[in-house]
């Protein structure tokens, strides 16, 4: 019996794999992203030392999260900002609703923020009758299509220029050219109006610097700065684990984030926001609110899954993942896509409804090798699989099968008998030593591949027979 989420997953995967254009594009995209990642990291003198440094500082921060959160919050407040620690998504939404009501905001501009999608903020704001405009170009596009983002840093990755042209032309009410510069110019014009008219700006936080209470935003479009400076009120939403102790660690984190994520030495804009506008500032919001979102993260602390909290959201894992390249971002059914999504989503949202995610991996390890923060993604996927089994979320027949297999592996004579039996059973189905159509679960293999049949005589039988011993006799 397939669960509804497995049915959805299979349907999305089937559609994505059948889409030749998308498959070719994903392959091209991954090749480009991998090259950019490797080239940019290759410029560093000792990339493994840099990865160790990032892993160490993030692991340290997460291991002492309560201390750094307190320090961060105290410093934000010391600079005149407001801090709210939201235990749940509902708490976070409720706080934002209060601020939006208090400010009587009618138009909100948003910088890219995965955590605001995680807590489902936009639907709440829209239900309040507020106009919310995503200002990151990729998010702007998928906001118009109503789709989930396709990739951690490239939300509209799956769309063609032609599709975006059609989308923008419908919005504009006139035919726009299928030209990247022209389409970007249209988005810029639209967004400019919104930036200038917005009452409130909502952003995510790439890194929170605990020692100074600073919100760091990393963008290539400048929308981060515009959406947090022009409106009178700025609300920054941050997952509690997105902290760094100090500016020195920011050097490491920023270097690795941009080089690994986009192959850039640094992003076009790095904005550092410490408190709301001061008397001596030319511009800036009157009020800064930082919403710290827990939503299941503290449950991960102190467990074998803690390393996933080191993630800096660079997207490298998806860039290197062969499964992502075949199934695409929407199959993950979550705001978090790719390997880190396959780990994080079941952890934050529970395994129910996501049990296929930890199994959507061949465990090739490319993600683990690519991760600048050394998140041991394949090991975490294995742990999730073991948890899925322990909690009874896998068919009992598999457990029976593996128990039987384990028993055979501890009794060589039983093993030997099993191998002989398999060889005998396979013989009528095999031609040339291969089976083209096998029964049961093996039928899934033979649907697409020939299956090598067991050999007439196993290795151990040949070894035992002196006449078949190669070279010297035993």
């Amino acid at each position, binding site marked *: 019996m397939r669960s509804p989420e497995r049915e959805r997953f*299979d349907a999305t*995967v*089937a559609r994505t*794999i059948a889409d030749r254009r998308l498959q070719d594009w994903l392959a091209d995209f991954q*090749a480009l992203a991998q090259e950019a990642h490797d080239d940019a990291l290759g410029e560093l003198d000792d990339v493994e030392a840099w990865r160790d440094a990032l892993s160490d500082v993030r692991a340290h921060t997460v291991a002492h999260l309560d201390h750094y959160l307190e320090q961060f919050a105290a410093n934000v407040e010391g600079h005149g900002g407001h801090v709210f620690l939201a235990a749940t998504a509902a708490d976070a939404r409720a706080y934002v609703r209060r601020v939006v009501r208090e400010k009587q905001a009618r138009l909100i501009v948003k910088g890219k923020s995965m955590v605001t999608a995680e807590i489902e903020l936009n639907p709440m704001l829209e239900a309040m009758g507020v106009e919310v405009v995503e200002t990151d170009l990729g998010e702007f596009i998928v906001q118009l299509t109503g789709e989930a983002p396709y990739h951690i840093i490239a939300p509209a990755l799956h769309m063609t220029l032609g599709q975006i042209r059609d989308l923008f032309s419908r919005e504009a009410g006139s035919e726009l050219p299928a030209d990247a510069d022209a389409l970007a110019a249209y988005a810029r014009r639209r967004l400019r109006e919104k930036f200038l008219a917005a009452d409130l700006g909502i952003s995510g936080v790439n890194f929170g610097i605990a020692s100074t209470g600073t919100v760091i935003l990393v963008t290539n479009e400048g929308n981060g700065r515009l959406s947090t400076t022009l409106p009178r009120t700025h609300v920054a939403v941050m997952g509690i684990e997105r902290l760094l102790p100090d500016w020195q660690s920011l050097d490491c984190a920023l270097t690795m984030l941009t080089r690994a994520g986009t192959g850039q030495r640094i992003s076009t804009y790095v904005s550092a926001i410490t408190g709301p506008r001061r008397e001596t500032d030319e511009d800036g919001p009157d009020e800064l609110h930082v919403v710290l979102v827990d939503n299941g993260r503290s449950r991960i602390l102190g467990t074998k899954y803690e390393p996933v909290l080191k993630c800096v959201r660079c997207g490298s894992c998806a860039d290197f993942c*062969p*499964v992502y390249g*075949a*199934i695409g971002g929407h199959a993950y059914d979550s705001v978090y896509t790719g390997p880190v999504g396959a780990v994080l989503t079941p952890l934050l949202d529970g395994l129910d409804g996501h049990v296929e995610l*930890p*199994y*959507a*991996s*061949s*465990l*090739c*390890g*490319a993600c*683990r090798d690519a991760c600048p923060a050394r998140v041991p993604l394949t090991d975490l996927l294995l742990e*999730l*699989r*073991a*948890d*899925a*089994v322990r909690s009874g979320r*896998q068919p009992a027949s*598999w*457990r029976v099968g*593996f*128990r039987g*297999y*384990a028993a*055979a*592996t*501890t009794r*060589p004579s039983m*093993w030997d008998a099993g191998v002989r039996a*398999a060889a005998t059973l396979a013989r009528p189905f095999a031609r040339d030593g*291969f089976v083209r159509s096998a029964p049961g679960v093996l039928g*899934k*293999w033979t649907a*697409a*591949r*020939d*299956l*090598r*049949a*067991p*050999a007439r*005589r*196993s*290795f*151990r039988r*040949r*070894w035992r027979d002196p006449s*078949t*011993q*190669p*070279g*010297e006799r035993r």
Partner: protein
Amino acid sequence: MITCLGDALYPAVGESAVKVLRGLGVTLDFPAGQTCCGQPAFNSGYPDEARHSARAFIDAFADSEYVVSVSGSCAAMVRHHYPGLFPEGPARRRAEALAARTFEFSQFLVDVLRVDDLPIAYPAAATMHHSCHTLRLLGVKDGPERLLDMVDGLDYRPLPRAQDCCGFGGTFAVKMPMVSEALVDRKVDHVLETGADVLVGLDMSCLMNIEGRLRRRGARVAVKHLAEILAAGWRE
């Protein structure tokens, strides 16, 4: 270490490895207690069942000075995952001791035996798939190609995107068949691009997967383990 697939499906690979290692002067034994390292259970989320297999495996090789595996993923299971299967203490130490003595076949030739010359001729156009666990968990990178370089007459063609997963992933191949098929198709496309007559590999699970798809697509590419190439071309 002949491995479960080596014992049941690919005995010729084990025989080839024996021939090559003996040819290089190594004294060999095949401890009969070995069956399967437990990787299939472990990768599917059954670490307790895997631990049973692991214990038997560790016992089987207790007296072996070196353990040479004809499959990279099995060597990787022992080296990377065995210690963590056991709680701290004597069982874990035994696992660590086995891990330290376990090598994948090409790794053993290059890093332990330090082979720099082989009496082998094998005229054929060949390409090689690197196998994820062998590449990433064991760190086996240029060793196999260095060995193939020593083979007279071998026309070696690098496989495009050799580091890409073939899509086997153990039970992944039957749990997520659509995705596995998409991945193996890409791998087969790359193999065919090279125009090679032979695909060489270090891991029978990958070879079984790619070979199965090559055959189904009607491709006339032979699939051989590195040991088979070396043994077949061995000049006495």
